[in-house]
């Protein structure tokens, strides 16, 4: 808790003091900090005793040999491998940068994946953060597990931390499969029918399940108790529409305290534009 304020928070006085400070020489001992967090996120981090350290990034471009996207059967192993390799390498690089600037972890990581016919590109960008005065649990986590990378925003990171959960790292799983062909006879037979295409369904399930399993395996290897904020991306690959991609990315978490700390939110009723509440389009989304 903060000590009683020594002076009232008069904004105008603060502004004039701020403007006057430009005339004084800047303190030479401070090291330059770069951060892509917004002011709200920075304030939230400060309120739990953490601070941004530096912008960190990682990138990796992995090749996919020719002929991989031609129609085949089952999983497109090389594409899945390339994707996994690219994300892992990019994460590794980001972690190296994070430890170089002595951060405890990276939050707000933007994961940018581009799939091209012959290569898969992954770019990561986030801000390394650290506690200004690390407590025992945080030190222990850093010493045993190293820095974490998470695509949680700084705000989500703070909320989880207040609830007693620590972020362990980025977990992801991807799989590419070929859509199985139907024989000509089957096509004709099913043409006029409204019927489930069971072989296609099974193929889709195979893709999903292997991707989710990989994500779960990566969460377990980080020692996580769970994965939150999983983002799932599935659909045909743009340039090869008979290949289906399924990828899932989330953050592994585990309880840092004995039990979940309940937050007991306050319920508020905003008295904003009443007309908006009654707009019938809200029924239709």
């Amino acid at each position, binding site marked *: 808790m903060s000590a009683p304020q020594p002076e009232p928070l008069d904004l105008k006085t603060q502004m004039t003091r701020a403007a006057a400070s430009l005339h004084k020489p800047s303190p030479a001992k401070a090291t330059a900090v770069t951060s892509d967090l917004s002011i709200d996120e920075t304030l939230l981090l400060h309120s739990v005793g953490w601070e941004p350290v530096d912008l960190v990034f990682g990138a990796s471009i992995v090749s996919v040999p020719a002929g991989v996207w031609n129609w085949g059967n089952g999983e497109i192993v090389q594409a899945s491998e390339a994707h996994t390799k690219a994300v892992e390498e990019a994460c590794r690089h980001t972690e190296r940068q994070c430890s170089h600037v002595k951060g405890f972890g990276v939050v707000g990581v933007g994961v940018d994946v581009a799939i091209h016919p012959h290569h898969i590109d992954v770019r990561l960008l986030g801000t390394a953060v650290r506690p200004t005065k690390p407590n025992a649990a945080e030190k222990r986590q850093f010493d045993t597990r190293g820095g974490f990378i998470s695509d*949680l925003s700084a705000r*989500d990171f703070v*909320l*989880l931390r207040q*609830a007693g959960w620590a972020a362990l790292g980025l977990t992801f799983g991807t799989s590419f499969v070929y*859509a199985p062909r139907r024989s000509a006879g089957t096509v004709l037979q*099913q*043409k*006029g*029918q*409204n*019927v*489930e*295409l*069971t*072989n*296609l*369904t*099974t193929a*889709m*399930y*195979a893709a*999903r*399940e292997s991707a*989710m*399993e990989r*994500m*779960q395996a990566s*969460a*377990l290897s980080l020692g*996580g*108790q*769970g*994965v*939150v*904020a*999983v*983002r*799932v991306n*599935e*659909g*045909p690959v743009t340039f090869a*529409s*008979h290949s*289906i991609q399924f990828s899932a990315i*989330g953050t592994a978490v585990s309880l840092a305290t004995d039990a979940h700390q*309940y*937050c*007991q*939110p*306050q*319920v*508020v*009723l*905003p*008295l*904003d534009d009443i007309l908006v509440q009654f707009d019938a389009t809200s*029924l*239709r*989304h």
Partner: protein
Amino acid sequence: MSEAQTGDEGRESEDRGPQPTDLPKDASRRLKELEAGLFTSDLSVNEFLLIKEAGFHPLGFVMGSSIYHTGLQVRKFTKSEELTKLTEAMYNARELAMTRMEEEADELGADGVVGVRLDVNYYEWGKDAAEFIAMGTAVKAENGQSYRNKLGKPFTSDLSGQDFWTIMQTGHVPQALVMGTCVYHIAHRGLGQALGSMGQNVELPNFTQALYEARELAMTRMQDEANELGASGIVGVRLEEKSHQWGSHTIEFLSLGTAVTKGTGEITLPRPTTVISLDN
């Protein structure tokens, strides 16, 4: 769990492809890992915290899908009518997806599934084939009480984490995601009719009739599902209209909502503080 064992035995003894009510083998493997204690969820952090506040813990991200060939039904150019075969097809496809999702939740021993999303994907390679997907996060009550619905199945709801928390505070419990669907074909107007109303501001009775009827059918079916569950009400009703791949004169009306029943009846929602936000 006995349900899982029966499922496995059934699969091994038959050599046919997966039956509509069986989960593909791959799903079971993953679900076993989840039972070992790792939870996955596609809830945002806000929703995760509110689910915990409501006294539930997420178990795992569950999905159900089905790729359905929604082909053909002969329709008369000048008649407005419900295309019952297509309605059935759309209904079956979604039911398959939802049922598989519920089965996965069942295997995890969940009390319910929250944040259910129903999506349709179209793939270029499958003309008239669409993939129906249902996904959500399975949750279990931490106090050990069972929250399963009247049919003994885990409840499903498309309520977000925030809405789920709020509704639990009002003493109501979700039962199931209920839906009603109706695929309707709108008659094309004859040349005489079209010329007759040119230049006039007039109601088009066939369209009015047709679309009114279609919507009523969809909503009635949804209501019927809720009645079967013995629900006291439906919240968060959404009415969606899609033409899928059939052209503009054939529309599917889908009405979705969450059926709820009064639980303990106690309203624990704290009195809200009124605020007015000064941002855009």
